């Protein structure tokens, strides 16, 4: 596995949120999904930096919807995971599973 294919923890989380949300994956629900499941507060700046990076790597794609009133006449930017992103997620899980196999953590 090359370094280029590796995903950071937050990148994995964002890609998994996209997979979970399916067709409804845009900024607000992605953020809520992550906050609800991880119990972490996510800043919108960090989220969009990661989304842009994933798109630049070819792991995700995005497009704009029609403007809506509740967004002050602005469009939603929907995201979709692409096949290289799915492959990278799968690899990340395999690596973690291999590393965790047989490991028992002692008391801290």
């Amino acid at each position: 596995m090359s370094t280029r294919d590796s995903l950071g923890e937050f990148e994995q989380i964002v890609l998994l949120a996209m997979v979970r949300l399916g067709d409804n994956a845009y900024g607000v629900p992605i953020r809520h999904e992550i906050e609800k499941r991880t119990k972490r507060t996510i800043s919108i700046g960090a989220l969009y930096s990661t989304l842009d990076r994933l798109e630049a790597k070819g792991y995700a794609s995005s497009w704009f919807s029609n403007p809506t009133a509740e967004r002050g006449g602005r469009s939603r930017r929907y995201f979709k995971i692409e096949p290289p992103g799915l492959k990278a997620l799968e690899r990340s899980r395999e690596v973690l599973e291999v590393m965790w196999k047989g490991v028992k953590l002692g008391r801290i």
Partner: protein
Amino acid sequence: MPQPPFAARLLLRLFLSKAHNESIIGDLAEDYALNVLPRLGGARANLWYWRNALSAITARLGTQPQLSPDKERTRLMTGFMQDLRYAVRTLRQNPGFAATAIIALALGIGVNTAIFTIFDQMAFRPLPVKDSHRRIRRDRQYVRSRQDDGVTHFERPARKSTPATFPGGSIAPGKQWY
């Protein structure tokens, strides 16, 4: 529809690219109106909006693509004109807010100008009299003495000397005149 803080939106529009304007400001507006404001209330919701706006600006500042100087100038001017139109539209929609803002600005500028003018006249400019640099200040000095009645008195000491003229219009440091 409730509007997030005007200044924060203005900052976002100024610092974000057009694509991010759409997605980030749109996301914040939607989340603010539908989730955050009903849950947290006005003041805390506004704080939430400011925190997110600043985080978005900080994150975007490091990742904006480099444009040629001409394109950068055009982008800035277009953004400025959009902001100006937006500000005028908002002020016309809220005359009460506009009046408050204008009065606050007028008072702030007026008071600042008045204070600076007074300070300037008193501290920086020479006195409006002939040969103002030859003026000296004459002070009285009192000394404390304890007398037999047990009460502390403040007295004016005897005059030590009186110069007939002031040579050069100045007094040597340490020399006292009464």
